[in-house]
């Protein structure tokens, strides 16, 4: 019994930090509508800075002062980031801010290694809370008890801040309707900056307070950000109380899950999140998102099929790509195959995200399912490669059919979060069900048949499939179905009023996108000769998002270019420098600020400008997004 009580208290203590970080994310999202991917990075910097300060400063005052100073210092960094970067992109297409903050996260991961080294750092114990309290023979660290008290105290302070101060009232008002707050003459710039600062302060404080409990290391950002997303979604975006309740819930699930369901401990949290989202799509304490007032005419470039000249150009490019094996070595060919495979992956997400307006944060699940499908068929059933390639992606198709059915019931950020949860569930299964999937060791020895085994042949196979998939999806974009899908994205109200069953259309699109991603995954399994849980992990899902956004989410063919540029750059940077993440992250941030429409979007704009001497449309519509304030 005592053991369970101690376990419960440990869970509560973990909830404190989680709550701090989650409440910060929640406040920032509520007011600015930015899903701050860099929140985990700020948490990590908070921990590192606090580590340095508490090592340098002595005594109890030095420790606690160091913690608070670290949080303030990181909040200042947050202010700079907000003013220099985010202010320029508040009006960029939705999710572009996510890309920018993801770029920041990449940069931070390399910067902390540069400054603090790659090794885990073990910080000081907290003065006054070094010992443990005896509880019926079980030890509870007294620092845990401190954290258990701290959580509700911070909740109380935040509550007072939001209920009793003018600033708090403005924040609550902006969370409900920020356009109205702006219309009432509130200086939005400073409101956004201050909110961002408070949010980052909370994240950094959460990180700083972890140092007596956990080692500081350079991968702690991704781990926390996923958990925090889960907490915020369960609690309801924008709700502080929700964040608290959900933080406790998630921490307790983690604490007891490992005891009661060790087999599925990792899934448990995501399972709960999926159930909450299905039953209460806006989280336990959240409210339905008010429909955003759309800025009219953001997209003034309607899509059109390629002209015959452009088709010839695309064919020529493909033909040139096909000549690669004539002069390139094996390494270049395997890089080429990988890029082709990622083109498949990117265009599949593009179909869902750009055409359907459904940004999946867990698209790697279907890529990975395709890969595992191949591994099962080839290794266990021993089927020939052709059969495997035809059947393997079906696993992605089935996964997309099941998960997609639930996911399309939601939209916007909640859709993104549910897809993330589903992807994590699939990842956890692959990771924990060792007897079938090999767990972390993966499934090895998945090699192509002899007809496709040579690097040049496999390259041609990948290139051919990528070209076929791209063409097929392009045809689908301009098919009646593609138009119906865009219609559900542009105006749910109007599409319902002309007889379109949006959910069925979106579900179908989800299955198409999932199956296509599965094709990419199938080829990837053969390329690498193995399958690992990472093939359906979060970072791969984020890669797909970045590729689509980089190419241009509002274009038809951006994903192809985005995938080629991102993947080539990624592989090249990893081979050239130890600081590949720093360079890549910086590159992403620059792209977002300078070319908010993505690479292809920018090219289209230039072409349009050249064809018309005067700017198109009315001046109001032609205003570049980057300069909109």
């Amino acid at each position, binding site marked *: 019994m005592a053991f369970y009580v101690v376990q419960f208290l440990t869970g509560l203590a973990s909830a404190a930090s989680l709550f701090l970080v989650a409440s910060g994310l929640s406040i920032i999202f509520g007011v600015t509508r930015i899903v701050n991917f860099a929140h985990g990075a700020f948490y990590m910097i908070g921990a590192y800075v606090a580590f340095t300060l508490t090592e340098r400063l002595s005594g109890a005052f030095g420790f606690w002062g160091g913690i608070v100073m670290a949080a303030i210092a990181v909040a200042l960094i947050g202010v700079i980031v907000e003013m220099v970067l985010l202010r320029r992109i508040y009006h960029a297409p939705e999710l572009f801010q996510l890309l920018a903050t993801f770029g920041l996260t990449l940069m931070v991961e390399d910067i902390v290694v540069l400054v603090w080294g790659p090794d885990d750092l073990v910080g000081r114990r907290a003065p006054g809370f070094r010992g443990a309290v005896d509880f019926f023979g079980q030890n509870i660290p007294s620092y845990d008890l401190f954290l258990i008290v701290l959580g509700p105290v911070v909740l109380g302070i935040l509550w007072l801040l939001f209920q009793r101060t003018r600033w708090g009232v403005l924040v609550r008002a902006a969370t409900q309707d920020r356009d109205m707050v702006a219309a009432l003459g509130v200086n939005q710039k400073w409101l956004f900056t201050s909110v961002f600062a408070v949010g980052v302060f909370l994240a950094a404080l959460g990180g700083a307070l972890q140092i007596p409990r956990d080692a500081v290391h350079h991968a702690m950002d991704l781990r926390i950000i996923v958990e925090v997303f889960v907490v915020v979604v369960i609690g309801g975006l924008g709700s502080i109380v929700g964040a608290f309740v959900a933080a406790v819930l998630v921490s307790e699930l983690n604490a007891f899950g490992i005891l009661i369901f060790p087999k599925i401990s990792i899934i448990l949290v995501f399972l709960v999140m999926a159930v909450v989202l299905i039953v209460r799509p806006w989280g336990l304490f959240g409210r339905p998102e008010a429909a955003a007032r*759309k800025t*009219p*005419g*953001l*997209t*003034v*470039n*309607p*899509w*059109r*099929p390629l002209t015959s000249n452009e088709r010839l150009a695309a064919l020529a490019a493909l033909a040139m790509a096909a000549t690669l094996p004539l002069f390139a070595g094996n390494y270049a060919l395997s890089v080429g195959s990988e890029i082709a495979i990622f083109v498949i992956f990117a265009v599949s997400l593009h179909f869902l995200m750009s055409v359907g307006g459904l940004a999946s944060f867990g698209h790697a699940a279907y890529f990975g399912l395709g890969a595992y499908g191949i591994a099962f068929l080839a290794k266990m059933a021993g089927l020939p490669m052709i059969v495997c390639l035809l059947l393997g992606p079906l696993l992605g198709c089935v996964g997309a059919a099941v998960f997609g059915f639930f996911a399309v019931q939601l939209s916007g950020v909640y859709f993104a979060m549910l897809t993330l949860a589903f992807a994590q569930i699939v990842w956890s299964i692959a990771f924990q069900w060792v007897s079938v999937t090999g767990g972390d060791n993966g499934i090895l020895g998945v090699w192509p048949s002899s007809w496709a085994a040579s690097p040049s042949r496999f390259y041609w196979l990948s290139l051919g499939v990528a070209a076929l998939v791209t063409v097929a999806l392009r*045809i*689908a974009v*301009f*098919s*009646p*179905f*593609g*138009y*119906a899908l*865009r*219609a559900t994205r*542009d*105006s749910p*109200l*109007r*599409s*319902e*009023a*002309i*007889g*379109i*069953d949006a959910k069925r*259309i979106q579900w*179908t699109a989800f299955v198409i996108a999932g199956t296509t991603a599965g094709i990419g995954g199938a080829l990837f399994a053969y390329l690498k000769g193995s399958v690992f849980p990472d093939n359906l992990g979060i970072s791969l899902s984020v890669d797909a998002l970045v590729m689509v956004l980089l190419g241009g989410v*509002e274009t038809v063919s951006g994903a192809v270019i985005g995938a080629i540029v991102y993947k080539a750059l990624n592989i090249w940077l990893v081979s050239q420098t130890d600081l590949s993440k720093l360079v890549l992250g910086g590159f992403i941030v620059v792209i977002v600020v300078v070319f908010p429409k993505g690479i292809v979007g920018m090219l289209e704009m230039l072409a349009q400008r050249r064809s018309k001497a005067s700017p198109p*449309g*009315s001046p109001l*519509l032609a205003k570049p997004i980057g300069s909109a304030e």
Partner: protein
Amino acid sequence: MNRAPPILAVEGLTKSYGGIHAVRGVSFALQAGEILALIGPNGAGKSTCFDMLNGQNRPDSGHVRLLGEDTTGKKPREIWRLGVGRTFQITATFATMTVRENVQVALVSHARKLFNLFGSAPNFDRSEAARLLELVGMGGYADRPCGELAYGDLKRLELAVALANQPKLLLMDEPTAGMAPRERVDLMRLTATIAREKSIGVLFTEHDMDVVFEHADRIIVLNRGNVIAEGSPAEVRGNPQVQAVYLGEGLVYDARHRDGAPA
């Protein structure tokens, strides 16, 4: 007189939000080719009524019969399939598509080709799309991006989209809201002409009394969720209760007003 069964029959429609009765026991009928205006001051329950006819909102009690079929509680898309076109108070169009493509989506849906993955939507029934756009005077705008249209043009585009399924009934919620005076008159004349030609029933709500009295065959007046008057424009104009409700708001309609409106 032996009349055909009405295309729209509403019986005892009631809806309340919390303690507020938005609509109480509203009943009326609409004949083919008839233009019926639903008017009333702000908060009278017009939009609530409208949304229940269209399926966006479910009534607490009462029935809606469209073309002899009970459609109470059906979804908007099911009601559309029965032949009901809809325009919105604030236009709802597909902003990233061209004007023609907006109409084509409706035509695709009408032809039940929504799940066709291999056809060419840009070439889908261009002649019918052109005919509809010509009908509402938007023929020259077919290739313009919908996102850069003026508001009055968006309203006309909505009308073209609403006509794409050859409706027997048009539901128009404040069809001329936000338009310039000249455009208002033009749009309603156009609607009236089309309705009479094709014998389409039109139910519309409107705040502009010029529009209402010039085009409505019959008027229903709502106040606080109740029908307080019903009849020809002349009857409604002479109704003292209506005058009381509208005192100082809209009943300054007279012949001079009408002459002032450009033809």
